[in-house]
């Protein structure tokens, strides 16, 4: 059985995936690379656990997948954001902003 991620972390990973996919369709490895690059390695994605999230998001209808070819002409599964996923990203971003704003305000207390 996988180690239980806390909801917070799993939710965050889902949000990051949705965000990355909102830019362009991408395969799993690409997503993990992008998250690490963009965060300058600050967010170390556990590469394996990415796939649990991807399959769950697919079932929830927020992302969809199809098989395509990479630039090196290799078969890979590409994930893309669905309209429902876009809406969900909006919701989660708002939540995140509210949460992080709240945390900042608490930390900003002097």
């Amino acid at each position: 059985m996988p180690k239980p991620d806390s909801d917070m972390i799993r939710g965050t990973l889902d949000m990051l995936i949705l965000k990355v996919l909102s830019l362009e369709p991408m395969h799993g490895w690409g997503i993990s690379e992008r998250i690490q690059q963009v965060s300058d390695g600050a967010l170390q994605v556990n590469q394996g656990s990415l796939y649990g999230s991807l399959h769950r998001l697919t079932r929830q209808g927020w992302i969809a997948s199809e098989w395509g070819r990479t630039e090196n002409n290799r078969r890979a599964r590409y994930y893309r954001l669905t309209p429902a996923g876009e809406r969900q990203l909006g919701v989660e971003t708002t939540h995140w902003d509210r949460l992080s704003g709240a945390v900042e305000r608490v930390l900003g207390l002097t």
Partner: protein
Amino acid sequence: MRWWSEIRVRMRALLGRDTMEQELEDEVAFHLEREAEKLEAEGLEPREARRLARVRFGGVDRHKEAAREAWGVRTVMELGADIRFALRQLRSRPGFSAVAALTLALGIGGTVALGSAAHGVLVKPLPVPAEDELRVFWSAYNWRGVEFDHVKERTPVFQEVAAWSNEGYSMRRDPGSPSSLISATVGSAELFEVLGTEPLLGRTFQPGDDRPGAEPVVVLAHGLWTRAFGADRGVVGERILLDGTPTTVVGVMPEGFYFPDPAFEAFVPLELDPEDGGYQGNGWLVLTGRLRDGAGPDDVAAGVDAITRALGERFTYPEQWDKTRNAHLVPLREYLVGDSRAPLLLLVGASALLLLLASANVAALLLTRSGDRTREMAVRAALGAGRGRLARQLLTESVVLSLVGGGLGVLLAVGFFRLLVDGLPLAPALRDTLGLETGALLAGLGGAAVLGGLVSLAPVRDLLGGGPSGLGTRGGTAAGGPGSSRVQRALVFAEAAFAVVLVSGAALLVRSVDELRGIDPGLDPRGVLAVDVYLGPGETEAPEREAFFDEVLLEARALPGVESAGLINRVPVRDGGYQGPIGIQDRPELTDTNRPNVAFRTVSPGALEALDVAWVEGRSFDDGDRAGSLPVALVNETMARSLWPGKSALGRRIQATLAPGWFEVVGVVADVAVHDLVSPTPMAAYYPRAQTEASAAGGFLLVETEGDPTALAEPLRRLVGTTDARAAVGRVETMDQVLDAAMSDNLRLRFFLLLFAGVGLALGVVGIYGVVSYAVARRRAEFGLRMALGAEPSRLLAQVVRVGMLPVAGGVVAGVAGAALASRFLREVLFGVAPTDPAAYLTAALILLLTGLLAALVPAVRAARTDPVGALRAE
């Protein structure tokens, strides 16, 4: 949209499982390759790069599993795996699985089939509308025509009242075709209004059909219409011959309709002629009425009072059959199938008991096995299987097992239903109306699933309650906690109790049949065939019929192997009736209702000889006893003793129930059973056929042979046909069959109860054996140690036997108590044995204790022979 993708993913995961798996595989492989390439590009060795890629990915299988879980079908997939695993487990222990599944199959199949039959007879509506409004009047009595006409005018609480009875007819479609004998219901004109069923074709009875001078008509049942008339719709209006009388077919009843049972295939109006002697004379009718809508119990009671009063104003009754005193309305169903209720419910109960026994047995077997499987469970737990997961596995196994049993049981029920129904203690015609009901089959499967859940409770409890160490820290020997052996003992207790109930029921029936067999019917059935011969009176003259029967008798006596042959009007033991009060010349004080009620039997010379009836005194009939010679009679011992105690009956003069004049008693014969085997023999008198009903249309030919009497059936049929083409042969039975039929309910019940008891006993033995061997296996090391320390093998033996026998003994005691309580259901079917007969219970208890002891001894002896060294080393 979301629900759609949910369904799509789940459906794909279930149906396109292999594709999904392959895609996941490819996807992960691509990821690892890509990561390794990146690492290589950063300057790592290819091998090292691949290794590091896997490390960064984390546990590959673990994450794949997480992805699978995301498909949302894990429970379903695991169920599939559990079922496959369960089937593999069952196959790997074919002996255990076969015993468990077959015993469940027997219990379920038997209960389903018997329940279905009982439902068909006792619950399913009769083929008439609103049958609950139908009542039979004073069912213990027969009614006269004059009483019926009197009563039917005076029953405000009934919409209609009809009188009916049953008779046989010879039937031919036209004068050229062969005769067949049919059974018919004869009824007053109101019969179909009371029953309320509309005809399929034509009409039913109409007012006046039952009065003198009416045109003879007949209504056909659907079965006869199909069989004898090829379902020809043009038959309505056609004239057929009933007993040789041209009779118009006026209607055909719809399929499925019967009254009073499917053996009666035609409906003929009664002839109620006030001028006829029979109208005033003997009762032979059944009265049935339909209550008015909304008649409550009070209305009915008032209506019954009104009828009673009306009867009292018009008729005087002898005390022993006073209809004004014993008023009693019986629902039609009670009247028709009331006798079948007790035996049917008895059998359903017995098979349900067997099912319970089988379930207890399977539970005990599962428990023993779960003990054996402690090591397996421990390994699986160590590999990460959760306790709930293991419990679910056990549950699946036991449900799969009982569903296999249930499926087999349903197959058994379907395959053997006809055979079973033919074996039931029911009227033969009623058996044909029974079918296996789909509902019962589904209930059987559903019940099997529930049973599966229930029998897994004990092993699951064992698994969950054992604590962490309960999951087998000590290998195979630490099976089960103390709780499991308590449950096992309870199961053996239950098995023994159920088995005792079944065995004692069987013992009671065995004794009852012995009692029945011990009855002397007053005749020797060996080698005797009884053939129903009939020559319709409508198209033959009296002398023709007389000549015909004389000829048949002569020819029959000439057949090879025939010792004696004669005619009789009623077959002993089988056919009652033909009974009524007669005058006795030297007892003139016996008048009216005080006259003795005597069975009227007419015989030709040879009939009583064929039956080897014993003579007490006097002579038999011979060919000299003809019309015109001195009228003579024989009486049975009961009659001679009751009327002329201590004196000879010879020379006394008596009347006959259904013939005029006085007859001189020339002989006394031993009592021969009249109605059946068990009721006390009534007074009976025998008269020469030639002096009483020489020209009767029918008679039973009794033929005695040295060899097998059934071999005579065909020659006799041919003989009748060649003597007169218009004659018909009805029922043909050996006297042995007649006697068996008289005790058939008991024989049939005995058969089933012996079967159930045998299976129950076998199950009990398996259960006891299992429990004792289990206990022995568990304590093998302890025994080895004690033997090494010098314990007596005999003491060990006794101790082990006690483990097995204590619950058996307890179960036997409880079972005997339960059987004694349940035995009142047997009262109606037993003859000559009290339902609480101590011998039967003692026998059952002994049988169970002995078989239990045997089952316990085998493993106990093995325990006493334990090799101390080997046992300790195995630890």
